[in-house]
């Protein structure tokens, strides 16, 4: 392979294809954060008193905290008073009852993304609870889910219709004061998804939500809560793309998963938010707290993520394995190119007996990207026969990128088996030579090798997402690979 570095750079460098802004009227709070803002936010959403108190409690705690600085990230200071904490599309006021009533400009936005709602809903058989900025504007397949007894709605709706469930589970996995960003989210969360799968129910379809960040300078504070009751199963897909902006935007979401006895939750993410340009201007700050609690015996939670976007990613989807025989899985592909920074990984906390966890993490760094895997495997004293296997590999492309691995292992039980393996390497000249000597172009060869590198993770995604994820990786890595 000749003049590898420059060519790779060309292959890797590409314009963000999904950067556009939909110009629709929005109801937006003026920038600033104080208790009044939270009261107003809560009032607009007609929330019960306990929830307002819960938010205020979180806010008071947040004020005493400082942002984390231990990650291998260079985060410019964020002025939380300069952000606006609520933005809702105007059309919501008229309340669209069906797709026809949804603002055509919104639908157009989805069209440009290649995910026409109707088509996706009808052809793919997926219920899409589309979150456009902060308010859900379209929900489909409600009836079918209703028949199965599955509750799948926006978080605000759940607060109105199922307050007892929300109250029972909210904050039980990620407490209000868990960390700086979780506390901020707890105080000002706007909307998100709520899912409840009743006992013994297998959710009849893959559930999906599309998040987009639209209006400038509105931090998005999603709150997602999924509860899988005894013996139930649900697969949830989350995809993210955001229009192009020059100012950095903050996204501080909280996702809580609860799996009761014998329940299974599969949570998949494809994240393709605006990564900023080559100089690191613009892009999303993705500071997310995702945590699952395997509360019941033999419960299982599986996180799969493909992360190609965001300027800065700070995210550690975790599993607390409380129930005996519970299983946690984490499959991740994280790509950092341009000047992106990612500090991501997982935590597996083994508490119950006979618990097992698997971590497969694939990091790809290119151009001036920096990618850190930070993981914790903790085996508590009583967690007899805990089993963990961790593999985290890094692929490097370009002499100015960086890859780091910080795997913490804390084991206090002599019956535990914990293994960690990691390798770091580049695409070898031999691999390239093998491909090119068989008439495969360099672009195709790079794409092929990268896809092979990520295969173990991609195959864990539901089919539709696997296709999209592969496409995303290809698009993110080069400009012209067909």
């Amino acid at each position, binding site marked *: 392979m000749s003049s590898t570095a420059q060519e790779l750079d060309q292959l890797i460098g590409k314009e963000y294809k999904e950067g556009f802004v939909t110009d629709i009227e929005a109801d937006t709070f003026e920038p600033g954060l104080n208790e009044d803002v939270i009261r107003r936010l809560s009032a607009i959403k007609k929330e019960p008193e306990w929830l307002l108190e819960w938010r205020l409690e979180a806010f008071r705690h947040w004020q005493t905290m400082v942002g984390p600085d*231990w990650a*291998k990230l260079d985060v410019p200071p964020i002025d939380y008073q300069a952000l606006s904490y609520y933005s809702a599309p105007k059309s919501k006021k008229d309340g669209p009852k069906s797709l026809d009533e949804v603002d055509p400009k919104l639908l157009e936005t989805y069209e440009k993304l290649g995910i026409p709602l109707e088509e996706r809903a009808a052809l793919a058989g997926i219920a899409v609870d589309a979150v456009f900025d902060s308010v859900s504007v379209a929900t489909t397949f409600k009836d079918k889910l209703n028949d199965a007894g599955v509750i799948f709605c926006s978080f605000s709706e759940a607060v109105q219709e199922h307050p007892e469930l929300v109250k029972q589970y909210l904050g039980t996995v990620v407490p209000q004061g868990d960390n700086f960003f979780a506390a901020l989210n707890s105080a000002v969360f706007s909307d998100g998804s709520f899912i409840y799968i009743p006992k013994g129910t297998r959710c009849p379809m893959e559930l999906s939500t599309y998040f987009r960040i639209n209006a400038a300078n509105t931090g998005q504070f999603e709150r997602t809560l999924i509860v899988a009751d005894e013996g139930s199963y649900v697969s949830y897909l989350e995809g993210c793309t955001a229009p192009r902006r020059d100012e950095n935007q903050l996204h501080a979401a909280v996702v809580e998963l609860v799996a009761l006895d014998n329940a299974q939750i599969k949570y998949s993410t494809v994240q393709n938010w605006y990564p900023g340009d080559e100089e690191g201007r613009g892009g999303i700050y993705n500071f997310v707290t995702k945590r699952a609690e395997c509360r019941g015996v033999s419960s299982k939670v599986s996180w799969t993520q493909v992360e190609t976007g965001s300027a800065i990613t700070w995210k550690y989807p975790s599993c607390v394995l409380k129930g005996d025989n519970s299983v946690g899985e984490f499959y991740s592909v994280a790509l950092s190119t341009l000047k992106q920074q990612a500090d991501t990984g997982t935590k597996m906390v083994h508490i119950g007996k006979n618990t097992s966890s698997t971590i497969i993490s694939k990091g790809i*760094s290119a151009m001036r990207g920096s990618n850190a895997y930070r993981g914790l495997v903790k085996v508590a*004293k009583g967690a007899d026969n805990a089993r963990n296997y961790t593999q985290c590999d*890094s692929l*490097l*492309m*370009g*002499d*100015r*990128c*960086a*890859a*780091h*691995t*910080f*795997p*913490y*292992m*804390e*084991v*206090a*039980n*002599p*019956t*535990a*088996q*914990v*293994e*960690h*393996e*990691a*390798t*770091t*390497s*580049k695409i070898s000249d031999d691999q390239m030579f093998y491909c090119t000597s068989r008439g495969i172009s360099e672009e195709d060869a790079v794409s092929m090798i990268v896809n092979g590198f990520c295969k173990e993770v991609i195959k864990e995604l539901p089919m539709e997402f696997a296709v999209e994820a592969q496409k995303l990786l290809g698009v993110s890595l080069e400009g012209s690979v067909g």
Partner: protein
Amino acid sequence: MSATEHFAAQVRASARAGADVAWLNQTREQALASFEQMGLPTTRNEHWKYTAIKPIEKKAFAAVVGHVGIDDIQPFLFEGLDADRMVFVNGAYHHGLSRIASEGVRIASLAAVLADDAATVEPYLGKIADPRASGFAALNTAGLVDGAFVHVERNQAAARPLLLLFVASGNDAFAQPRNLIVADEGGSVSVIEHYVTLGQGAHFTNAVTEISVAANAEVRHYKVQQESDKAFHIATLQADQARNGRLHSYQVSLGGAIARNDVNTRLNGEGAEAEMNGLYLVDGRQHMDFHTNIEHVVPHCISRENYRGVLDGRGRGVFNGKVHVYENAVKTDSDMSNKNLLLSSNAEIDTKPELEIYNDDVKCAHGATIGQLDEVHMFYLRSRGIDPVAARSLLVFAFANEVLQTLPLEAVRTTLEKTLIARLPKADHLDELVQ
């Protein structure tokens, strides 16, 4: 008086007794200022996350004069080892017990060198190990008085290995050995640092060793820490390696209530190679912490690291191995392995093999495991009529011995093998099996 004030007062007093050289005084003063500013590390410091040093702060450790005879040190001289030796009692050089006869190498106490010939050590002392790396490194530098100085000149090979025996006698003794090993171009030397306690007392050793490996030079550094179970042992090893320079570091940690070792090297010249092997046996209420850091600064360097731990009783082990590959260090080849055997339900291990890489043309791998003895292996031995306790001991021995096998000096290796066997249950039985 706070612990920081106590130790600051201690080192001020010892520094006054040390050599009066302008540049050295300045180094000490700067280190003291850093120490007073930093204090001793707390668990809020990421590098000390798992190691609380509170017990060290609670006692008023101070310099103690000890009386030690040749019979006292005889058991610690590694049977059959033909070596020069320097003996330090509570940190101070003991001329009477030392034997220095070898050609090709200059061996002297640092205090003596600083008194007559300070210019020789000026380019190295306090320049290799950063006194600001931690409160302990600063404390050692602030009270820098004595230790061993070893110097092999260009293309010379020390005829015999050098044994540095650090004896702690008496309760509450505070010793701060400072060693400097310099191998000029093409030079080669083996040094064994052996830390022991007379009796079962509590004392505090805070050691720093600096090693300079010039082009084509080779240094083999052994460190055997066998202090009492009440002792506190903190030590830093920092090496600088030039082109094709080779460093072999062997660490064996057996004693101490709290034992913390920082083992660091910088590969500053192309073709430099570092080998770092270590073994820690943790039992009772012991706490042992190893932090290693290999910095690949330039291209074409190789590092190999293999640490193993056996954790029993209520002991706790910590391993943090870091490989740092700089932006221009292409063709770096690095491999790190940390394996742990967890034998008791009250023991704990916290391990973190870290990689920090700023360059794409590297081959780096690391692995860590935590587990138990293999049941199939147990079955194999038991089916051959070996009782379970002896079988278990045999397997533990085999696991730990893989590190000891890498030690080139036979006398050191066999002595440590015997020590290891003696620590295991059914030692007599085991002796037969291993022979």
